[in-house]
């Protein structure tokens, strides 16, 4: 088969290189979405850990009040 003229061959060459670029871009987009999801999960877990810590520690005012502390122990 004779060599294609430049204007005809250019379309195929461009298509091949664009396919390569598209594959890379799709991969990067998927990876970016996964990183975003992991970041969201991490921030949710951080919030949860902070909430647990706050729940575990009584507020300073309640801890200082002996009457409330006694009531809490009586429960």
């Amino acid at each position, binding site marked *: *088969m004779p*060599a294609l003229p430049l204007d005809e061959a250019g379309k195929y060459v461009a298509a*091949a*290189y664009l*396919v390569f670029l598209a594959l890379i871009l799709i991969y990067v987009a998927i*990876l970016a979405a996964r990183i*975003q999801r*992991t970041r969201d999960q*991490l921030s949710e877990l951080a919030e949860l850990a902070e909430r*647990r810590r706050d729940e575990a520690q009584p507020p300073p005012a309640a801890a200082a009040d002996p009457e409330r502390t006694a009531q809490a122990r009586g429960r």
Partner: protein
Amino acid sequence: MALATTVVLVAAFALVFFYAPNDADQGFIQKIFYLHVPIAIAALVGFIAAGIHAIRHLRTGESIHDFRSYVSIHIAIIFGTGALITGAIWAKASWGQWWVWEEPTLVSFLIVYLLYATYYPLRYAIEDRERQARYASVFAITAGAFVPLNFMAVRMAESLVHPRVFATAEGGLPGSMMFTFLVALAGMLLLFVTMVRFEIAAKQTRGQVNRLRRALDEAAPVGAHSRIAPVPPVEGAR
């Protein structure tokens, strides 16, 4: 690594279009060679690397090698897809057909690609993690051994239209073309390694998040409704 990959790939593509001469026989369309062949080689190298990691996994029992084998196959499948698509485009331009079923090189590559495509269903059909990793390693070794055997068989087979080697009756690939090809191959192999590393980092991070989730879940006070709910959809991600 990512920076080196970008620099080498950009240099390779610059060499392809501004340095390497047009092929005397095929003309401008031969520029696809610098993309198609390195992608195909990187895919096959990835399959073999997966087999080597699988051997290490079976020898040591360390799950990291199974993990690397899995990721190598994952990325090699992406490269294989690229090789098939760019090859079909080149075939259409050169031979007038998207695919030639009589050509052993094309069909053998497709067989290897489809063989590895069965890796995921096989792997996830097994629930037990230990068995899953062991069977997947056996698959990766067997299929990895098939790659060079297949390559040799194709070299021995009678060629129809697809060239087998770079050398021609008039001599090998000219120096400028060979140099461009080698830079493109180096770029593609670097891209493969970079993508494998990104994928491993992403999967390990996700694994650590899941571990943290489980640890927080187990550390919840008794009686409290502390089971962590599934992650709600994030508005910004929509």
